[in-house]
């Protein structure tokens, strides 16, 4: 009965505050630019088998080191040219978007899940368990970025899975800290006390009452972490610790092209541009989201 009354009095133009804030994003031109870039990369990744002109790992003896199309000797068959094994660069870059985005989603997903869980426990239960969790987070943060990931992969052995795991682990503290802070703040508010008064259990209070109110900073952190995950994964693969051949991964492609730098600079150039654009896209969107969702986080 009560809900019905509430509903009839509700202004239809009233939207969830999060949606309200997100609609501000459209007014931010740079954020929209970021969104466009990311959308292009995601579409390329999803439709890779249909839009790639060639098989990304198929080698061709006759097509080694063909220059890009605008070059004198370039052909439309290989728009961005080919590498030293005659593989089509455009196709490899399109498939590379797949690899990079999957790596970013999985590693950030891992960090998000673990970090949010730990942050919730820390902020909600406080006391000793909070102390322990946050000290462990401090320890992870005591390692310079990338170094810890490199070391973890060094011990586990070089592979894309291990690189994802290593990146995920190093990103956990960022999420844990943000969630803990928000949960600590929200715990003091009346609605939490009300939820407790009506007898909701801890899990319900944390995940259904508190967490939705901490979403803003979490979304921002997720987007910015996607940017650094793409970058770090490429760096690990460049060092030979991530994707292994013949996987079309941007960082690994750059590493292989080092010896060709004078003869065929395009083999090195395009994967780098792809990394730069993808990371820039996530950073642009993340900055815009931060302005829209979480003014406190502005640097």
């Amino acid at each position, binding site marked *: 009965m009560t809900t019905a009354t509430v509903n009839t009095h509700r202004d239809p133009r009233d939207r969830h505050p999060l949606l309200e804030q997100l609609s501000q994003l459209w007014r931010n031109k740079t954020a929209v630019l970021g969104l466009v870039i990311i959308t292009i990369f995601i579409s390329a990744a999803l439709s890779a088998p249909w839009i790639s002109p060639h098989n990304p790992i198929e080698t061709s003896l006759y097509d080694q080191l063909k220059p890009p199309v605008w070059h004198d000797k370039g052909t439309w068959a290989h728009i961005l040219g080919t590498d030293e094994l005659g593989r089509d660069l455009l196709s490899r870059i399109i498939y590379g978007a797949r690899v990079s985005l999957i790596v970013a989603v999985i590693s950030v997903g891992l960090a998000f899940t673990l970090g949010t869980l730990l942050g919730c426990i820390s902020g909600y239960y406080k006391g000793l368990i909070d102390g322990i969790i946050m000290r462990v987070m401090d320890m992870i943060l005591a390692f310079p970025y*990338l170094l810890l990931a*490199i*070391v973890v992969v060094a011990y586990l052995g070089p592979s894309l899975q291990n690189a994802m795991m290593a990146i995920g682990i190093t990103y956990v503290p960022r999420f844990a800290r943000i969630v803990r802070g928000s949960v600590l703040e929200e715990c003091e508010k009346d609605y939490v006390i009300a939820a407790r008064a009506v007898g909701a259990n801890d899990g319900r209070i944390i995940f259904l009452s508190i967490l939705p109110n901490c979403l803003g900073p979490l979304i921002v952190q997720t987007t910015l972490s996607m940017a650094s995950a793409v970058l770090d994964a490429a760096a690990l693969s460049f*060092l030979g610790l991530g994707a292994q051949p013949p996987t079309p991964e941007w960082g690994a492609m*750059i590493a292989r092209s080092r010896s060709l730098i*004078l003869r065929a600079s395009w083999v090195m150039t395009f994967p780098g541009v792809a990394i*730069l654009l993808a*990371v*820039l896209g996530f*950073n642009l969107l993340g900055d815009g989201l931060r302005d829209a969702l979480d003014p406190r986080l502005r640097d």
Partner: protein
Amino acid sequence: MLAYIARRFLILIPTLLGVSVIVFLLLHLTPGDPAELLLGERATPDALEQMREHLGLNEPIHVQYGMFLKRLMKGDLGETIWTRQKVWIEVKQRFPATIELSVAALFISCFFGIILGIVSATKQYSIFDYASMLGALAGVSMPIFWLALVFMLIFSLNLGWLPMSGRLSVGVELKTITNFYILDAVLTGNGKALKDVLWHLIMPAVTLSTIPMAIVARMTRSAMLDVLRQDYIKTARAKGLSRVQVIFKHALRNALIPVVTTIGLQFGVMLGGAILTETIFAWPGVGKWMYDAVMQRDYMVIQGGVLFIATLFVVINLCVDVLYAVINPRISVR
């Protein structure tokens, strides 16, 4: 103040202990036998047993950690697997190269970052502001290992202006005293070597400075914008002081407080980024050494190097915190 510093140093102890635990666990919880990991697959059973004994692998794990810690306290980071050198001595040899590179990169990033930030803030919403902030965002998003190769292609291979790798050209004599080549060249009054050293330093340092420079520029801009909105800036202008005077004397001093923290943190980040830069430019520092160790699976070097860099990182962060308290009178250091 002293009490604050002392307390911060006390907090350092559990953090460093934690770092040692992580480094210890990395080797000992990795699947497989650490002795075999250290000696390689083709080690004889005798050698393996000796190594196990030496590492105390037959003891319970907490006893092993105790032994590990005891050795650390004595400054014993063990021996490298391949060259049988003391890890600590190798670190000391390579450390100056890394510091020289990082300090140069830090200098470049601060100088240009702060100038870009100030100009952007004073000309907010101008084309220059948009361009430099988009540039800064591109800088933050830069895969520096790629940028390094692009620099090499342009400035070494095509234009031939800068040397491609290393710290010193073959044939240039330099008597090393401190292993900081710039300092050594100055101390021995060796002008030719100094020029050569600086020439070698430019590309790696600029590469390494890219991301920190962008971060410093963004930070300076937003800090300046915050400060420029304050009333005392209006007062200073109303008093009849020139714009330049107000910006540099009144605004910048306050705006720099948060920037200093950022810069300090970037120094630590650079120690990590140095692995990429040093590897590409064959810069004989700790970063390249660690990379080589990873490739050769020299776990003693990895362990020692990580401990060393992490300790340095934690100590630098502590210094930044203390410095922050010193330069910011608004923070009470109870």
